[in-house]
């Protein structure tokens, strides 16, 4: 396998299939500038820039990126930013703003800022505080309190311009030709595959019935980085063209299982501010550049952020097996129990299909978590409805964090259809939700809080859908609301 590392071609031959990009950089490529802070994609100390042939720099967490994911791409680490011995503007701004104290998280911040630098340069606009904060939301710093790092981001474009932070991959590695149903690399014990088409993927699944699939790797890679597991065959489905597409056909949006969230964020038919707000808080930029719907659904987690939204939007999944046989399963029927789905061995998710009409219906999504950015939901509520006046003709309500699987609140839906959006209808629906679920107490929240929030979030959402003003501590509107009181 070939890739470009800090502008130079790099070749990988004999390697464990499980090796992460971070382990490769630190132990094989002699580039220890990229740090391991958590090995779980939560702290951003291992952030590097990854560019495809388009040259667009994307931040990723090297600790949970399989090495194979960078095949044919260009990787830039903190060691690759200096040019002729002078620091990159993101680096110099960090020095000048006193943005490092212990320095351990610093390379990760520098890479997040350097990626932002190139994007801002391309757009010709200096980033706002909000944009800088979003760019570094996946980077934890325990020393500085972030203010000087944000200031570095705000000021870095004032330095003499740097022509290019990340070069596209060199021709050599990008144009690599190979049999994509054969291993990309491996050794006597293990094989890493990277098919580019479904046909190749199916051939691999037939030959390697025990193979594990990886796309964004945010869940699967933890088995390696946290539990030190070994696998004979790992199949990276993030390059399968059919799985990366987002397209509209027959009044339906088909979202490829491997399309990263970053692509969803940019897709016009998904411009719903409510969805965008959910995506914004889903992991960090590093995560959204790699992860997508396929993994979020397939791992069967009851606290994943997208399933309630997709349940609400009447989504169904296209599942395909090694023989290429496809079946369509409504998301309602996909989950069986805690971390159990109808996915059979050797079966994969091709796409998530969402009727455009469902997206068009008024909806509200509300997430609660201990921390606003980059945190797993304690409760996520999604509601979508069609109404005229107070009467409701269609409604779907779904939750994450309230049961062993993402689940609809069917009782509450029924109440709303019967009683509409009157005060009493809303109260009855919220009461039904609190009755319906038996959530757990865990590290994120108590069962009592979850139950109370399931009702309160629904009430907030229904009132908004009824036309009452949005009141929230998160939206800038809240300031004027409070100011008006004052």
């Amino acid at each position: 396998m070939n890739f470009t590392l800090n502008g130079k071609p790099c070749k990988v031959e004999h390697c464990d299939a499980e090796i992460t990009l971070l382990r490769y950089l630190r132990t094989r490529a002699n580039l220890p500038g990229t740090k391991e802070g958590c090995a779980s994609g939560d702290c951003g100390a291992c952030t590097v820039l990854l560019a495809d042939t388009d040259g667009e720099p994307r931040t990723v967490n090297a600790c949970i990126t399989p090495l194979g994911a960078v095949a044919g791409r260009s990787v830039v680490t903190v060691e690759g930013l200096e040019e002729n011995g002078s620091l990159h503007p993101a680096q110099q701004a960090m020095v000048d703003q006193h943005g490092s104290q212990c320095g351990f998280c610093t390379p990760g911040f520098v890479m997040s800022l350097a990626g932002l630098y190139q994007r801002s340069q391309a757009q010709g606009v200096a980033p706002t505080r909000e944009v800088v904060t979003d760019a570094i939301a996946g980077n934890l710093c325990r020393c500085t309190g972030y203010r000087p790092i944000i200031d570095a981001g705000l000021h870095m474009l004032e330095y003499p311009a740097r022509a290019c932070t990340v070069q596209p991959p060199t021709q050599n590695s990008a144009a690599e030709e190979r049999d994509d149903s054969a291993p990309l690399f491996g050794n006597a014990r293990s094989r890493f595959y990277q098919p580019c088409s479904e046909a190749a993927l199916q051939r691999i699944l037939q030959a390697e019935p025990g193979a594990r699939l990886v796309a964004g790797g945010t869940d699967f890679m933890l088995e390696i980085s946290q539990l030190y597991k070994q696998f004979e065959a790992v199949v990276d489905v993030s390059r399968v063209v059919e799985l990366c597409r987002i397209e509209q056909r027959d009044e339906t949006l088909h979202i490829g299982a491997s399309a990263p969230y970053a692509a969803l964020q940019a897709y016009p038919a998904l411009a719903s501010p409510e969805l965008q707000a959910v995506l914004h808080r889903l992991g960090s930029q590093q995560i959204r550049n790699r992860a997508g719907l396929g993994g979020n659904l397939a791992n069967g987690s009851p606290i994943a952020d997208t399933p309630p939204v997709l349940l609400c939007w009447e989504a169904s999944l296209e599942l395909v097996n090694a023989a290429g046989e496809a079946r369509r399963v409504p998301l309602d029927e996909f989950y069986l129990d805690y971390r159990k789905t109808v996915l059979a061995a050797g079966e994969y998710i091709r796409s998530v299909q969402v009727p455009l009409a469902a997206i068009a219906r008024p909806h509200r999504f509300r997430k609660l978590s201990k921390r606003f950015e980059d945190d797993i939901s304690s409760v996520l509520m999604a509601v979508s409805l069609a109404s005229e006046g107070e009467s409701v003709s269609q409604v779907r309500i779904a939750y994450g964090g309230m049961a062993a699987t993402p689940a609809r609140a069917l009782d509450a839906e029924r109440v709303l259809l019967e009683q509409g959006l009157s005060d009493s209808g809303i109260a009855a629906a919220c009461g039904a939700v609190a009755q319906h679920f038996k959530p757990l107490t865990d590290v994120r929240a108590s069962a009592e809080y979850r139950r109370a929030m399931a009702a309160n979030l629904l009430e907030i959402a229904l009132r908004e859908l009824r036309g009452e003003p949005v009141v929230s501590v998160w939206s800038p509107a809240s300031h004027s609301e409070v100011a008006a009181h004052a």
Partner: protein
Amino acid sequence: MRKLVSPLPPGQGSGADPVGKALPQDSAERHVSGRAVYIDDMPVYPNQLHVAVGGSEHAHARVESIDLSKVRAAEGVVDVVCHADIPGSADISPVFDGDLLLADKEVNFVGQPLFAVAAETYEQAHRAVQLAKVIYTPLEPLLSIDAAMEAQAFVLPTRRSVKGDPDTALAAAEHTLSGETRIAGQEHFYLEGQVSAAEPEEHGGVQVYSSSQHPSEVQKLVAEVLDLPIGAVQVQVRRMGGGFGGKESQAAPLACLSALFARRTGRPVRYRMARRDDMVLTGKRHPFRHRYRVGFDSDGLIKAADVEVAGDCGCTADLSEGIVDRAMHHSDNAYNLPAARVTGYRCKTHTVSHTAFRGFGGPQGIVGCEAMMDDIARATGLDPLDVRKRNLYRPGDTTHYGQEIEENTLIDLVAALEQRCDYRRRRMQILEANRGDGPLRRGLSLTPVKFGISFTSTHLNQAGALVHIYTDGSVHLNHGGTEMGQGLYIKVAQIVARALGVSIERVMISATRTDKVPNTSPTAASAGTDMNGMAALDACETILARLREFAAGHFGCAADEVRFVDDHVHCGEQVLGFGEFVSLAYMNRVSLSATGFYKTPKIWFDKEQGQGRPFLYFATGAACSEVLVDTRTGEYRVQRVDILHDVGNSLNPAIDIGQIEGGFVQGMGWLTTEELKWDERGRLISNGPANYKIPTAFDLPEQFNVALFDRPNHAETIYRSKAVGEPPLMLPISVWCALRDACASLCDYRFNPRLDPPATAERVYWAVQQARAGVAPEAAW
């Protein structure tokens, strides 16, 4: 040497006094370029071994048998050790006994290491430790402060400080009130996890690289474990990727195991903890139960207080003696308690032994005290700031542990912040806004911090330094303090540059090493610069005295006419470049190297009586925070924070501001989103960054105004500066108090609902419910 190099040319005018300048952290350029080397970045030897440990599955159990046959047989495993394999002492406690490198017959917390593996790769070591078969007889664990108090299970005896006659004064007081706050612990979450490396040396000793705040203790413990003289072990610490107290005693086991394997195998060994291991196996900030009974008059003036602090020390004493002492010493925060009894319990539980964390018990004492101040305000109907101001210490007052207050900085500082942040106008606006029935509520609070500076163990208040001047006029600086990001190295370099009259570029900062400065104290208690700066100054003055004497003789001027300024030396009429001058001194056989030493004056403390002068001085500051709370969910935002903090004469304002802002955000995390949780069996379930949430950039207050209070330290500290490491951590107590304030608006400020930190959205929601129900918390005791 036979031939000297040309001296470094004097600086081009920029060489003026570096003290007080906002110079960057000494490694800033290396940090941003990835060139700063942390221990795990050091090159790996071809025969490098990696360590992992296997630990207890029970909080409390007798170990019946350990079968390690599968561990030994696992791929890549080179060596395995148990308690019985330790050649010297297995006890690696910092102060009192009980911290075992590897457990023997009994385990006292989930995860407690029972054996260790050295393997060819990191992953192999971690896979191997999963293969052990251990048979336990579970014993009843104590898993809470209440359980320990009931069982009277303590790691160390209970202590008391008493001032006046608190019982009589309480009985006579116009009003009395009591309250309880349960204050959670905190995970350090330094970004660089615990790590150590050891290399065997030809004389049978070991060279250790440790990410430690206390290299001398690591050196001593490695020597004890290996049964070697201390001098056979040397420890180097170039930098830590964050410490915060978590690498004061907790770094030692990694160094000891690395060294043990290095001795046994003759190979270089590295032990880096995986994040989850680090979170489970190393101690945290102590959880505390704080209870108070207070007597006061209708003006909110305190007459007497009875305070009980009970710290969850975990399974051993570790540093808990001093930590609970400091919680006791800060139970008054900034307020005069005319009569007081403060009792400190050191509870034993079957959890990991809790340890130092920025503030060292002080923050927990202050949280409880500030809760008390707010409760007095509710009981009297006064503005909480008025209650606070009325009770602030005045010069001449005495603390409950007998230390006299010598300055009135805090009175002036609080008044100045009150003006700056427009407290009174905003308070009126908030009271008005909260009268509406909208779902959002606002809260405001201004809280001071007074933090005692010095180690409470008097003997630790000593420091050493080593300064060399080379013949070209470059300077080598070494001292016993360690760099963990706090900017100690650059501050001491600034001190040395001023003392020698040279530009900062001449001062070469070097890694902390036990063979350069021996018998050092931990870099802790905020005292790093105070102590090491003074020691370095002492070394400089020794050399300067020799140079002055030489110059006087050589140039025929008076010794006190010799001045060192701007990279030049003025000897009467003669002016020489610094390098030229020291070359001349060398040729005339003047020693250009000296050690320096410092011991903090004036301090003493009688631990049994709970009386003395434990602190040389107090560092002070204050913060005003405003929050906006959504009463429907408990979610909130910190909208504005104003800080005024007293660092005396700032040695480096950029470093000081960095400590203040960083300490604030770290403390805010402790009090808001960072929630440690153990399950009913004593297993830590908040064991990674996915379920333990430290602040992100988004959590920064929307408006964050930080300023230094410009006044020299009255105490004779290095260039009249003040320590800054820990005190700012307590400034965000104002955020917690503001959240209580917002919740109290729902019961018309009649009482403060219970809101034990961390004030997660969930806890704020329940506090809102309590306030709405109008039911004040029950009297605690």
